């Protein structure tokens, strides 16, 4: 028996990974189905000298982690749909001020308080478009505990590398599901530390002047350099400006630093996509059902393939286009009304070959549900 083998919920896998990635500060507010993450942090963070605080609401929680991040800490909060809605304002602030943080949204049925103990994947578009104004965002997901662990470490690494909030879109099924987790040994997965400025005290430090590689080294609040942070458009010193040239430059920077590095952030898994006339595209809990079906049908000689997306934003259009090039039918399996479906349609050459297999009733979509839809599609002569 391996010393690192655990049998835990997906929420705990995520929390374990956050500690592995170097989490030092967590602020949160209880909400089903994410509360296990906060409970884990309340117990474990003080044991490693880190800090957990239960704030008065989700708004305060995300604000607190942004404040803590600015002092040089790796930070995270976790919530579900209603709480994620409340966080949108400060999510925009983190985007604008380029403060690294990780926000976990264990999705449940919505809109509104919806279905607290039931699964959904309805927040894909909210993660991308929930906060106002033009910007880019990083949103990741995974379907097994081992992958949740790895993608959570990625989330911290991306947040630090690109100085951006990263959203982890888990779901009720994987969050509450218990299965095996092999906690990787130290250094088995690379972790990215905070990039700090090498500018010495007394020399001008420009908090918002990107280096040639586009990265912005940080200086901790309380450290050698005093500067300003604001959600207003700001110049390279961090002070408010309305200069059209600077406003344009900042928006481009905020979008480009994500979109231009999309390849570095694209994570996916594929199963039998090479020879499959029907390719399923799925993510999160839904992709477990899709894979179940694919493996079963393969045993019976039916050539189904699966592309499991782990990076949802920036959406990997090129990857999807490539993997679906030879497919006669593409079936997007998700638990919403087609939020990833829309992106897949944009990605492929023939949008008319893209179909939706979904479920929006709070129940995990089953392999049979997907099979039935494939039959209908095939009945259409595809």
């Amino acid at each position, binding site marked *: 028996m391996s010393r690192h083998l655990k049998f835990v919920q997906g929420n705990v896998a995520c929390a374990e990974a956050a500690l592995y990635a170097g989490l030092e500060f967590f602020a949160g507010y209880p909400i089903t189905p994410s509360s296990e993450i906060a409970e884990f942090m309340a117990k474990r963070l003080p044991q490693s000298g880190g*800090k957990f605080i239960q704030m008065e609401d989700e708004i305060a929680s995300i604000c*607190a982690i942004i404040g803590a991040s600015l002092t040089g800490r790796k930070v995270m909060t976790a919530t579900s749909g209603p709480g994620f809605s409340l966080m949108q304002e400060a999510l925009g602030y983190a985007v604008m001020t380029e403060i690294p943080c990780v926000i976990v949204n264990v999705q449940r049925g919505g809109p509104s308080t919806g279905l607290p103990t039931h699964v959904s994947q309805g927040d894909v578009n909210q993660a991308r478009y929930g906060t106002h104004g033009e910007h880019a965002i990083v949103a990741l997901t995974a379907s097994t505990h081992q992958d949740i662990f790895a993608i959570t470490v990625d989330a911290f690494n991306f947040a630090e590398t690109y100085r951006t909030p990263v959203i982890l879109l888990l779901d009720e099924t994987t969050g509450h599901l218990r299965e095996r987790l092999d906690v990787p040994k130290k250094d088995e997965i690379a972790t990215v530390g905070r990039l700090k400025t090498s500018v010495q005290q007394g020399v001008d430090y420009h908090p918002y002047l990107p280096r040639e590689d586009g990265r912005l080294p940080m200086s901790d609040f309380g450290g050698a350099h005093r500067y300003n942070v604001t959600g207003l458009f700001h110049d390279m010193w961090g002070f408010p400006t309305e200069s059209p040239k600077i406003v344009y430059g900042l928006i481009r920077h905020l979008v480009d630093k994500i979109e231009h590095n999309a390849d570095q952030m694209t994570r996916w898994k594929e199963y039998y996509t090479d020879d499959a006339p029907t390719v399923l595209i799925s993510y999160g809990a839904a992709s477990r059902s899709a894979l179940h079906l694919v493996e079963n049908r393969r045993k019976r000689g039916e050539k189904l393939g699966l592309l499991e997306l782990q990076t949802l934003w920036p959406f990997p259009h090129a990857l999807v286009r490539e993997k679906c090039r030879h497919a006669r039918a593409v079936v997007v399996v998700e638990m919403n009304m087609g939020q990833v479906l829309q992106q897949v349609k944009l990605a492929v050459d023939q949008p008319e070959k893209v179909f939706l297999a979904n479920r929006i009733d709070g129940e995990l979509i089953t392999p049979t549900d997907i099979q039935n839809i494939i039959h209908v599609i095939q009945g259409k002569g595809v």
Partner: protein
Amino acid sequence: MPVRDYLRERFFPHMWCPGCGHGTVLNALLRAVEKLGLDKNDIVMVSGIGCSARISGYVDFHTMHTLHGRALAFATGVKMSRPELTVLVPMGDGDALAIGGNHFLHAARRNIDMTAIIMNNRIYGMTGGQFSPLTGYGCFGTTAPYGNVDHDFDVVELSTAAGATFVARSTTYHVIELADIIKKAITHKGFSVVEVLSQCPTNFGRRNQLGSAVEMLETYKKQTVPLNSKAAQDAPDKIRRGIFVEKERPEYSNEYKKMIRTATGES
């Protein structure tokens, strides 16, 4: 002037209107910081949104201009992470008590060591004079054209009830007293609230026939009395100034430090 060392002079003259009390609050705050001999690198100022919030742009500390009402939540993250820093949180009355009311109550309840300065001008100045939670019954604002039917909070009572361990009130007329109170508030170990009556001649004074900034300061002079003074006894209706609460209660970051010792088995 020694306090100028704490200013980001390149942004002066500041953006506040002629006669705005907020500049005087800044003035008094810097004098308090100077008297305490604090290092600029050890001070973090976190502000919200509104006229008041612009104060963070003018001081040469680590400064964070955040979201409307959320300054205390951001500041809580800063203070928890780096308890050794001095955290100052100036807020407007709408900032602190309307949109940020809940954050205010809970920061006070936790007794986390920071200094909340409520720059009470009784109006939303930056957005053009809409009534705030401190405007008061019968006053006028652009969203109270027939006279306000909303009642106002008493900041001192509210803060006290919420558990703040230092609660004081002063005005932009009583500048020596104000600087002294802010100094004590910063030194106090726990959540400190200083309410400063700060005139808005442009959007509150004018609309309520209170006259110029000078006349509004005259009102502060005449209509307020020191707490527990003879003048206060003689005039029960006048507004009290001074330190209302100054008490010891376990401070949040300290308590958390102890909790870490329990969790790691070091205690």
